[in-house]
């Protein structure tokens, strides 16, 4: 009886409330993001290893998020620019622009020559062959989508590779600094040391 009551009456509102909380939570967030940011990272002053350049610091603090995927749709080569791969970024920018120009040209040309009475299958003067436009249209679209996916996938790979190199380099150097080696650059002085471990 009680189970039937819960099932029939309460289950719907409970699920509705949970659903509202989930949706509401993401509405209040400032970014389209699946990771929750619990604190303001901008207030933290990072410990920067000596020798790290500003461009390395920038690369290391960059993450690819869902909003970047959207930006990359609008700005060709965006992910490569973010990964500091300017040459590839500009190439993608050029290719995607060519794709957009191609689409624009097809649209303009098609509208100009379009004959509403055109009988497909019969060719007569003053009309157009739709098949040529199809090829140009598909090529332009392929260039646009291919550059987008290349930008996203290859850019992501490049950024992560660079971040790994930086992390490896400075991480290993910090470790080398902390380990006690046999050779020292200053004259070797006999020392007594006590280590406390908890």
């Amino acid at each position, binding site marked *: 009886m009680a189970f039937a009551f819960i099932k029939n009456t309460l289950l719907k509102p409970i699920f509705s409330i949970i659903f509202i909380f989930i949706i509401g939570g993401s509405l209040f967030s400032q970014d389209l993001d699946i990771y929750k940011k619990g604190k303001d990272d901008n207030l933290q002053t990072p410990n920067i290893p000596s020798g790290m350049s500003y461009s390395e610091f920038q690369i290391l603090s960059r993450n690819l998020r869902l909003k970047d995927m959207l930006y990359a749709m609008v700005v060709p080569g965006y992910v490569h620019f973010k990964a500091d791969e300017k040459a590839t970024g500009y190439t993608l920018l050029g290719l995607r622009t060519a794709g957009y120009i191609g689409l624009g040209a097809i649209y303009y040309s098609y509208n100009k020559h379009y004959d509403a009475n055109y009988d497909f299958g019969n060719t007569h003067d003053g009309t157009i062959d739709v098949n040529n436009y199809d090829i140009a249209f598909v090529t332009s679209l392929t260039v646009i989508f291919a550059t987008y996916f290349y930008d996203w996938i290859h850019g992501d790979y490049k950024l992560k590779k660079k971040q790994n190199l930086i992390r490896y380099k400075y991480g290993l150097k910090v470790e080398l*600094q902390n380990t006690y080696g046999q050779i020292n*650059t*200053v004259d070797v*002085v006999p020392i007594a040391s006590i280590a406390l471990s908890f």
Partner: protein
Amino acid sequence: MRIVKYIIVGFILLSFWENLIAQKSNVFIEYQYLELTNSQRNLDVIKDNYRNAELVSDSIINNQDENYINAHFYYELANAYKIGDEYGMWAFSLLRQLILFPNDSLRNGGIQSFVEACTKLKIDKSKAINIYKQGAKGPNTKSFTAKLELLIEQSIELYNKDVEELLQQYVFQYKKNSPVTSLKIKQWEYLNAIGLNIKNKKELMNNYYSATSTNIFNNNPKLEKKVNKKIMKYEKNSHSLTSFTKLFEKRK
């Protein structure tokens, strides 16, 4: 109670002391890192560290630090450049080790590696051996500035773009500590200032220091015309050839 206080203070002092003594220098860490990465032969990792290694090298030159580990650092850096196919910097790093921080244990491997690097730079074997031997002989005085002068003079002979970029910094450092600049360095600086390319610079300098060539242009009117044009453009006055003639006057 007092004894407890002394023990605590003693512990604190000991831990400070240990940190002070066991602190490793950047050169030693860089040397260890180069050793680890060179053995992995991962080009991305090795090339990524060139800038950092040169920063450490700059600190050695600026501080005129004469620690024995510097020789090992430069030798390992030369190996890193060798793996990355940076022939000019490979030879230059070996020269830096040889002249600034001579080490007998690195001599045999050093000369072989240097000749190999020079072959890649299209410098003939006899000349490469001559450069290395001049470097191994060292300067007349033991001062760091004299060593730096010899290093610059010998490195000019490599005629490599990457090396020349670094040499400009080294010349700046050398001139800060030396009231008189050597003629060869002055000549090289002048040819750089007028914007002569490496090929022509090499030809001109080789002609000047060669015992066989009759004049500096070695009867090459095309080169003479090009050099004169560059000088006119640089000096912007009618007496423009004065500095050039003075610098490259006939050897006695």
